[in-house]
Every structure is written in C-alpha cells, then in structure tokens.
C-alpha cells in the first residue's frame, strides 16, 4: 500500500461500481450513455492498476500492496488482498483488456447494451479480485462470482447454440469449484483455523491427503485452464460466445486456472505435485500435440483458435510441472503472451464475423484484396500465435522448451512439435481466409477497418511486438517470486 491508498481494492471495486452504474442506465434508449460510461469506467480501471506495476518492488517475493481487514470473524476470514510477482501482471492484463472489449462491442452489440457492458465491467473487477485474493474464502467467492456474468454473457449475446454452451460452461466449472471448496475447508481445519492462503502454504499434510487435495484442486483448475481431457466445454463456449466474451475467456479466464496451480496446488501440496507431475506432464503434452492436430482439422475459425488456446495452455502446464525456473517463467510469459495473442485473434475473427456473419473458413478467401490493413494486422497476430521470433509468442515457448530439455529431452521434443503444428494450423487458416482470389461477392463488398478497430489492433500489435523484442519488463517482475516458489515447492511438507 502506498501512502495508505488501497490500490487493489480500487482496482477491484471501481469497475464493479461503474458496472452497476452502467446497468442502471436501463434500456437501450440510453445505449450511447451506457457505452461511454463503460469506456470511462474501464479506462479508469486500467489507469488505477498502473501504480501496481510502477510501484512494484521486484527484488522480493513478499506480498505487496497488502490490504487486510476482518471480514467474517467467526471463521477468521479476512478481506486480505496483495500481489506478488506472479499475480501482478495478470491484474494489469485483466484491466488492459477491459477497455478493448468495451470498444470491440461498441457497435456490434445492439440489444441490451447496458447489461452487456455492465457484465464485462463487473467481471473485470471480479477477475482482478481472483488474482489479488490472499484469503481462500475471498478467493473462492471471486472465483465463483466470475461464473455468473460469464454465464449471462454467453447465454444472452452468444451464437445459435449458446444456451447449451452456457450451461455446460457453468456446470463444468462448478463441479471443479465445489470439490475445491471441500479441500479448502479441510485445509482450514488442518491449519488450526486459518483461511489465509499463505498459512496453507506452511501446513504439514500427510501424503494420502495431499493427493486427494491435489485431485480436488486439479478438478477446479484443470477445468478452467482447460487441460485435456476436461477441455470440451471450451470450444463450445468460445464458438457461441460474443467476441468480447471469447476475448475475456481466452485472454484472462484461462489464466485463472493456471494461476490456481501456482497459488494453491504446488505450494500447498508440493509432495503430491511432484508425485503426480508425470501425469500432469503427460496431460499437458497430449494437449500440445493432440489438440494441435485437432485444431488443424477445424473448419470454424473460432473453434480453431479455441483449440489452439488449449494447445498453448498445455505448454503452460508443462512449464509448471517440470519444476525449473526456465519452465515456470516461460510458462508465465506464455500465459501473458497468449492473453494478448489469442485476444487479438478473437478480435480479428470478430471483425470478420461482424461484417460477414460467418465463422466458416470456407466462406472466406481473398480478404486481403478488400481489407489490406486488416490483413496486415491479422498476419502479425497469426505469426505470434505460431511462435515466430520477434513476437511475444516466441519468448514463452522458447523458455518452456529450454526448461523441458533440462527435465527430459523427449518432453522437449514432443513440446517442440507445436512449433510445426501451431504454424501449420494458424498459417493454413490465414492462407485460406486472406489470400487467393476473392471468393464471393460478400467478400468483395467487405470494408476495411474503421478508426475504432484500428486503434484496438494498433495497441495490441505494439504490445505483442514490444513483448517479443524486449520481454525484460515482464520477466524481471516475476523473477524473484518464481525462484522462491520453486524453493518452496522443493521442500517436503509431509508431517515428520
């Protein structure tokens, strides 16, 4: 906390308050006001998070900007917030994407604008809360509360099969969460009556309990990541969600699951994490290779990017469970980069969909002829998605592969195939959509990006290139926290 100013609380509650204000503008007669209010709220929401980065002390793994108040004294539950090198960047990422999502839905969303914008703002605050919570119950409350706006976003503004996708999304994630809740309550009783996550890190737990807790956490986090084989909700949710929903899902919500592994599974049950790391690595590699192949076969652009996300997140979990600094830092960088790149790709597809109302690759062809500026941006993001050096996508993947070589050459070998598959499915899609002769008269009538869209893509392009060419500002923040986490995880927590 700087000068006693609760930055994190403001970062959480400012978007939520603006969200409620936006909701209160009511029906679509005031749509323009709702949009402007939402934009103001989201930009302010991003601005207040900047001090978290500029004021961050990178040479300690202690929690910073800590806020601690009594909340439910009966169960010694606290309103306990704070950030370390692992979580701070995700808070910025979340706040960064909210204005982009608001802008992306500016014209396209015509019905129930206030509810749409309000949901996104509220969700943005809740997601920041997930990353900042240091009390297990507070974390759980934010974690579950996230489901409600997302459920509505997919269900109200989504595509044809939206109801199925929304319900599947909700129930899948709730299954995992409820098991996690039991595990958290068990830990509360083991730790002698504390719900602090940092206290959980110190509790000694016997091996069989560790394994059960790991499994409970696994269900909660693996569903969100999503890891093979609990990934099947994601393509449905992505395909049916509106553009903004897909962006938030891919850019931020998937990161929440991976973050959970770092904050809960690995430090709380390190022995079980080591014991089961083989399984986790196997599942990660299956995601990387098999889901990469699945992505190759997609005829729907959004589904393709959705599968590509699962494949990339496989990289992230691989990086975690090889237990070395390269792997873990690479995985974190990959998470941030994937946030930018997949968000940008979904926005690109959104741009096409807004004009053509189709996501089928076969309906396109020769878009470069009518939308040259768009084609250039799309090219950059497609390259970043396939991990081209110089883009953000390269840094994380390279470091994870480096880490994997240290652990086991064949892990690295299997993971490196993604450089081929990733390039294959992304660029093949790009070729079919953008290049060639103009496919039909719909494509011939396409108009290029307008100023609003150019602004969104320019911001993202600068970030993707900047992170690719100079990743130091991102990696230096997390360095100490990652090393400390690895030291912590290396210690056994079995009772003596």
């Amino acid at each position: 906390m700087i000068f006693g100013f609760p930055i994190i609380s403001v970062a959480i509650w400012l978007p939520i308050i603006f969200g409620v204000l936006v909701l209160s503008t009511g029906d679509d007669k005031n749509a323009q006001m709702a949009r402007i209010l939402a934009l103001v709220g989201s930009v302010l929401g991003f601005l207040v998070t900047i001090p978290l980065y500029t004021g961050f002390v990178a040479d300690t793994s202690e929690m910073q900007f800590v806020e601690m108040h009594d909340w439910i004294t009966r169960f010694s539950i606290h309103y306990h917030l704070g950030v370390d090198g692992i979580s701070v960047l995700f808070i910025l990422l979340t706040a960064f994407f909210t204005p982009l999502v608001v802008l992306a839905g500016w014209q396209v969303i015509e019905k129930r604008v206030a509810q749409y914008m309000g949901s996104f703002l509220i969700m943005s605050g809740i997601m920041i809360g997930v990353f900042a919570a240091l009390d297990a119950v507070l974390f759980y409350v934010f974690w579950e509360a996230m489901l409600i706006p997302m459920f509505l976003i997919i269900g109200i503004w989504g595509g044809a099969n939206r109801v199925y996708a929304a319900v599947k999304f909700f129930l899948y994630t709730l299954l995992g969460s409820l098991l996690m809740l039991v595990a958290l309550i068990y830990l509360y009783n083991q730790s002698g009556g504390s719900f602090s996550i940092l206290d959980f890190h110190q509790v000694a737990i016997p091996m069989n309990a560790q394994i059960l807790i790991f499994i409970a956490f696994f269900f909660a986090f693996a569903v969100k990541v999503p890891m093979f084989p609990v990934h099947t909700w994601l393509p449905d949710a992505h395909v049916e969600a509106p553009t903004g929903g897909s962006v938030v899902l891919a850019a931020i919500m998937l990161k929440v699951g991976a973050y959970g592994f770092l904050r809960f599974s690995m430090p709380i049950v390190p022995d079980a994490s080591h014991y089961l790391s083989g399984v986790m690595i196997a599942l990660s590699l299956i995601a990387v290779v098999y889901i990469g192949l699945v992505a190759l076969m997609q005829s729907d652009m959004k589904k393709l990017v959705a599968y590509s996300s699962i494949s990339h997140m496989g990289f992230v979990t691989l990086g975690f469970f090889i237990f070395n600094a390269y792997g873990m830092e690479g995985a974190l960088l990959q998470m941030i980069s994937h946030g930018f790149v997949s968000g940008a790709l979904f926005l690109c597809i959104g741009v096409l969909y807004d004009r053509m109302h189709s996501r089928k690759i076969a309906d396109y062809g020769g878009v470069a002829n009518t939308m040259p500026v768009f084609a250039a941006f799309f090219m950059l993001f497609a390259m970043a998605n396939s991990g081209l050096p110089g883009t953000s996508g390269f840094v994380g993947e390279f470091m994870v592969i480096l880490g994997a070589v240290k652990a086991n050459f064949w892990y690295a070998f299997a993971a490196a195939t993604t450089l081929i598959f990733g390039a294959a499915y992304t660029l093949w899609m790009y070729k079919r959509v953008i290049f060639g002769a103009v496919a039909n008269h719909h494509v011939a009538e396409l108009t290029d990006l307008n100023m609003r869209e150019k602004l969104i893509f320019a911001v993202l392009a600068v970030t993707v290139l900047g992170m690719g060419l100079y990743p130091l500002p991102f990696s230096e923040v997390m360095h100490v926290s990652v090393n400390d986490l690895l030291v912590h995880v290396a210690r056994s927590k079995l009772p003596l």
Partner: protein
Amino acid sequence: MDLMTNWMSAGAEIFLLVMVCAILIADLLIKQSGRLVTYMLAQITLLGCSLITVGTHENGVVYAFHNLFVDDLMSDVLKLLTYLAMSMMLVYSRQYLTVRGLFTGEFIVLALFAMLGMMVMISANHFLSLYLGLELLSLSLYAMVALQRDSAIATEAAMKYFVLGALASGLLLYGMSMLYGATGSLELGVVSNAIQYGVADKNLLVFGLVFVVSGLAFKLGVVPFHMWVPDVYHGAPTAMTMLIGSAPKLAAFAFATRILVEGLQPLVQHWSGMLIILAVASMAIGNITAIAQTNLKRMFAYSTIAHMGFLLLGLLSGGVEGYGSSMFYAVVYVLMSLGAFGMIMLLSRVGFEADTLNDFKGLNQRSPWLAFMMLLLMFSMAGVPPTVGFYAKFSVLNAVVQAGHIWLAVAAVMFSLIGAFYYLRIVKLMYFDAPESHEPIAVGQDSALLISVNGLAVLLLGLLPGALMSVCAVSVQQSLLLH
C-alpha cells in the same frame, strides 16, 4: 418460580393469543371491503410480539410453567425471525389473495394461530408442549390449505396433508410414549439425564427414538417421508405454500434440536447415523427429482426436500459449529424461500398462476429488475457466491468436515451440483429465452418493495454474512449450554 416470571417469559405468546381472539371477533364486524383493517391489526400484532420478545429478553436460560416452557436466546432469535417471516408472508400474499377472494379473516387468524404453534414449538422444554405446538401449527395449516373450497386440487392436497400429518403425529406420540416408559419423564432435561445416568432399557429407548425420528422426518419432509411435500406445495394456493415453506422451517429446526440435542443427546450415536441416511437420501432424491419438474411449485417442493437434507447434515455434525450452521441454514433458507414464492405470486394475475417454468421465460425483457432479483434468489439457492446461500452451505460443510465426515461433504457438494442445474434453468429461461406473453406485470408497490429488499438482502448478507452467522452460533451455544 413466581407467577410473574412465568407470565413474562411467555409474554409474546400470551399477547398473541389475546390478539388473535380479538382479531377473530373484530373481523366478524368488518365487511369484506374493510378487510385491510384485519390485515393491519395482524401486522400490528406481529410488531407488538417482537417488542415484547425483545423487552422480556433475559440473559441465560429461564424455565417456566413447571419446566414446560423455556425462554432462551435461541428461542428469542428464532421467534423474532418467525415474526419477520410471517409479516413478509402477509405482505406478499395480500394482493394475490385479494384477487382470488381468499383474503378473508380466516386466513389471517389461522396464520396467526399457526404462528402461535410455532412459538410454542420453539420454546418447548417438554414432549407435551412440543407436541401441542406442533399440532396447533399443523391443524392451522391443514385448514389453510383447504381454504380454497372450490379447488379440487387444493382439497386433495389438504386431505393428503391431513392424513399423512396425522400419521406422523401418531408416530411421534408413540415414540414419545416409549421414551416416557423408559425414562419416566417427558421433560427434556430429565429424559436426557435419565438416559445418561439411569438404567433405562436401551432397546426401548432406541425403539422410541426410531419412531420419534420418523415423526420428525415426516414433519420436516425428508426422504423417505417426503411424499406429501410435492403434492401439498403444488396443490395449495401459493400464499399457503409460502407459509408452509417458510417460517415453520425455523420451528422445525427448533423442534429437531430440542428433541434430539436437549432430550436425546446421550443417544447421539444412534440418531446421527439415522440422520446421515435421511440427509443423503433427501439430497439425492430431492435434487434429482426436481430436475424432472415443469411446475415451479413442485420443483421448489423437491428443492425444499434437498435443503432440509442439508440442514440435517449440520445437526448430525454436532457442536456449536453443527447446530449453529444448521440454524443459519434454516434462516437463510426461509429468506430465499419467501423470495421465490413471492416472485411466483408477483407474476400471477387474476385467474392465472405463474407457477410453470414457461411463465418465467423472457422475464428479463419484461422486467429486468424482477429478473435480477430472481437471479439472485436462484443463485443463492444453488449456493453460488456472492449470495448468502453460499455461506449457508459453506458453514454446514465446515461443520461436516470438522466432524470428520469428509465423504459426506463430498457427497453433499455433488448433489448441490445436480441442484445447480435446475436453478440455473430458471435463470436461463428468464435471460436467454423470449417471453411467451407480453402482458405488463402489475405489481403492488408494497410487494415490489419487499421483493427488492428480499433479493438485495440475499446479496448483502452474502457480502457481509458474519453478523448473522455469529448470532446463530452464539444463541445455539447459550441455549444448548454447549462449550
């Protein structure tokens, strides 16, 4: 024990009885058009009761009327909540009953008599007073369900309710008589001591216990004694369903704790095993069967069964955590149930009951505010934070884990997951589907205000649940003399 203490500790009950009789007579002189006067009198009575309950509150536990009656913190808290629930019930149902011609003096008088029964149950310290309170409550409810004379379905429901309720009362009495035979007393504390230190016949005790638990299960409506619940909930006019589904659950909680904890604590290893079976079966059957319902009132009936199963989980875990969480669960459940049935009544019109799932289609387009309130209530019933329903489940689960039944907790959350589906379906209908009718929703100002307060209370208590949780825990701790 002097006379004054006796009268003081039962002050609210006595005042209520006097007022009910006065209202009964006054109502004879009032024309149907002036029925509002009766209604206002009833609300004033409730207010008076709460003032008396607060005013006569004494620290510690006070026994009165030869230990038939007990006045402790738990009874005072539960009574105050009962008044609140009854008052809300009256507000919600006024318009609904008026357009159906059911807004009569009988309704109000019977409701108040039912409340008197609940209060006696809450404050009973003796098998006889427990039974008297229960019968006063039940008989009033039978009559209220049958109040809509020309409705075949309501009459059928009343008949079923009466026959099965009488059977349950019989079981309960039979069990009590066996316990009396074994211990030689009907007073809860004496029974408990006799079992603990005496040489009571173990077989007879357990036999009596089985009957008492069965009778209790009937009244709570838990599996396998739940068959009356869906029919009664469905058949009764919604206002009566709301009454049955709300305040009596508080009394039922008190009834169960008084018998099982104050009276039969030494037999805990026997009854906690029975409760595990009842609880798991209720959560399973309740949640799974609710999915198949298209009628909202039937769905809520099965959902009640599942919720009562959850409530039993707290009871069987024992200790301040267990009983406190159970009480908290009952209070939260009453709040949610009032809101849910209130919403059904709000959407109903003359000659039309909004009690099927389709009636909620597209509510977000017809009235975003009401849809949002219902959304809060449904997520609360499903136990999703940041609503108070989550903390109810959370505190019960915590008690269950503390008692060492981790697998029971896992089973409970799995059944909650199944339950989430049908609550989610209502949200889905309200938000994702197009409305079937565009008829404007005519809502009285009082009930519109109340549903807003009710829905927001579910949210605000979800953000700051600590106070209510502590009140429940402290009152249980003081009253049941736990440490």
